[in-house]
């Protein structure tokens, strides 16, 4: 296993800058998730680490070794692709042993390693099948097995679960996480799914438009988003955002939609106030008058979409609270739960 250092990495296609000033340190054995909307550069970054994409500037080190100019095969990394990219003309056993054979390991050792990995992933019965005779979930396992069997320094995952159905995806998510806890293999995992990022990552890296917005442990990122983009990207349903000028400790987003702010904001400055649905209390003594638009019951919890002074608000409430569309209610939002961002989307110091 190995640590990874990424310093000032940039990527340009001709004159178009797609990535700039990427700095990232991955500790030995850490599970890092790169997350962001499609086109944010997360897959490109992963491919640059793998050596499938050249870097325009900067340095990448794997296990203390600068790999900028090394071929993919010399980097000792294993990659799981979104499409799995199994070799269609080889059976599962040959797929898994492909890299070991290239390394000219003795047959007995290959047999032992493939057998061990196959039983870990419950692939024993499928070893003689071709990929086309496997289900999506089985192919996914084979792709994982092909990576694991090599004992590489670094695992790279490029949206490996996005082709699976929702149920299987949740199961595999847990399985990959359990596998990581057992192997302690340094892993970099790319996904656009913030739930995957939250649940799997030791630390997550939120990317946007070729830049890193924030790096941190999932709950830290959730509780203390550094930018408005991160606040809006992480969390479902999305965080509520109201914009408006602040005067005398009050943000006026719209007539009837005001928030008490307990931060030092220059008077008259326009800010964005973001607060999560779980921090919106529906309470008869609240300060904001609102009306219920839509009620979504999910079972353990209920989401209520409301309108206050013409602005939309989402609240997460207990299922015992009975609300119907059209009900007038009052809302309370604790000042401590409000994140403030300037017009550039940067967090304002509390």
């Amino acid at each position, binding site marked *: 296993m190995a640590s990874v250092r990424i310093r000032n990495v940039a990527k340009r296609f001709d004159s178009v800058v797609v990535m700039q000033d990427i700095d990232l340190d991955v500790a030995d054995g850490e599970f890092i998730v790169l997350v962001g909307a499609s086109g944010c550069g997360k897959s490109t970054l992963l491919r640059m680490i793998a050596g499938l994409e050249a870097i325009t500037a900067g340095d990448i080190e794997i296990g203390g070794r600068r790999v900028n100019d090394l071929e993919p095969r010399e980097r000792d990394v294993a990659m799981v692709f979104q499409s799995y990219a*199994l070799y269609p003309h080889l059976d599962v056993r040959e797929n898994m042993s492909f890299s070991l054979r*290239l390394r000219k390991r003795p047959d007995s050792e290959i047999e032992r390693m493939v057998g061990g990995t196959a039983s870990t992933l419950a692939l024993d019965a499928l070893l003689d099948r071709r990929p086309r005779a496997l289900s999506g979930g089985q192919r996914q396992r084979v792709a994982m097995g092909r990576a694991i069997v090599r004992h590489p320094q670094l695992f790279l995952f490029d949206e490996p679960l996005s082709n699976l159905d929702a149920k299987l995806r949740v199961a595999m998510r847990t399985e990959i996480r359990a596998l990581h806890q057992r192997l302690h293999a340094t892993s970099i995992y790319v996904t656009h799914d913030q739930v995957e990022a939250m649940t799997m990552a030791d630390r997550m890296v939120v990317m946007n438009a070729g830049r890193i917005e924030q790096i941190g442990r999932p709950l830290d990122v959730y509780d203390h988003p550094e930018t408005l983009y991160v606040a809006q990207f992480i969390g479902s349903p999305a965080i509520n955002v109201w914009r408006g000028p602040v005067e005398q400790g009050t943000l006026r987003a719209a007539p009837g939609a005001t928030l008490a702010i307990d931060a030092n904001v220059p008077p008259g400055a326009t800010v964005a106030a973001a607060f999560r649905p779980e921090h919106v209390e529906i309470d008869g003594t609240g300060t904001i008058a609102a009306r219920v638009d839509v009620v979504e019951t999910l079972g353990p919890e209920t989401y209520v979409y409301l309108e206050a002074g013409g602005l939309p608000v989402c609240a997460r409430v207990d299922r015992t609270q009975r609300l119907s569309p059209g009900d007038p209610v009052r809302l309370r939002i604790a000042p401590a739960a409000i994140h403030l961002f300037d017009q550039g989307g940067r967090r304002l110091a509390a």
Partner: protein
Amino acid sequence: MATPAATLRIPRPAATPPLSIVGGGRIGGVFLVLTVLAVLGPFAWILVASFKYQIAIYSGEWPFTPTLSNYAQVLFGRRSDFLGNVVNSLVVASASTALVLVVGTLAAYSLHRFRWPAWVSAGFLGWTLVFHMIPVMTLIGPWYVAFRELGLYDTRIALILTHVTINLPMTVWLMRAFFREIPPEIEEAALVDGCRPLEAFRRVTLPLVVPGLIAAGILAFIFSWNEFPIALNLTSRELATVPVAIALFAQQYEIQHAQMAAASIISTIPAVILMALGQRFIVRGLTLGAVK
């Protein structure tokens, strides 16, 4: 001669609606029968003629007494060198097919895989198309002069090179379609797994385009086997290929119809066998990428 008869066996794609809808029932059926007759009729006539004595062909005798003497004379007759012609054809067709597969596959892979500037790939593909579009007769004159100068006139090498040239466009275009079907991640997975680029091509990409190689190979072989004008002009009697030899049964004072028919039938055998073995690859190859 063999090609039209054999290609007609291509099965209808599954998605095509039943014939009754396409052709409006009876009329469609009539057209189908007419087409089949138009293609198979001449072939059947030659097949029958190959079992007749020359005199029976002239007299139009029916029914007739079948004979194998035409085949015996063509294959083993003292005046016939037909087996030699078959050997010539086999050598030329095999060698030109092997060569065009190597050149065409590598060219197609390069065009597909490496980021050539647009003018290079477009220029190359356009240039190969030229050879496909202009009449072969236009090229034969220059080739005749060129090969005479090079001392290659009346050699198999000359014929092989010209057949490679003629077959190259089809091979490149066909193989490109097959390479395009392979997701790039498969090759990338091989690179990450430890392959050098050439190894990834040999171990992963090439095995996946074997159906394409079969299709392109069969088409190239059959073309070369059937090719007449170039072979006629660039070789003498000694190195004549099968089509040329068949034509030589028609001499100035005598046309040996019966032996000509027998030779024709023999000449169709390799093509028919190849088409029967490989038609599913050819159908797939020619329609590849047409629909998702």
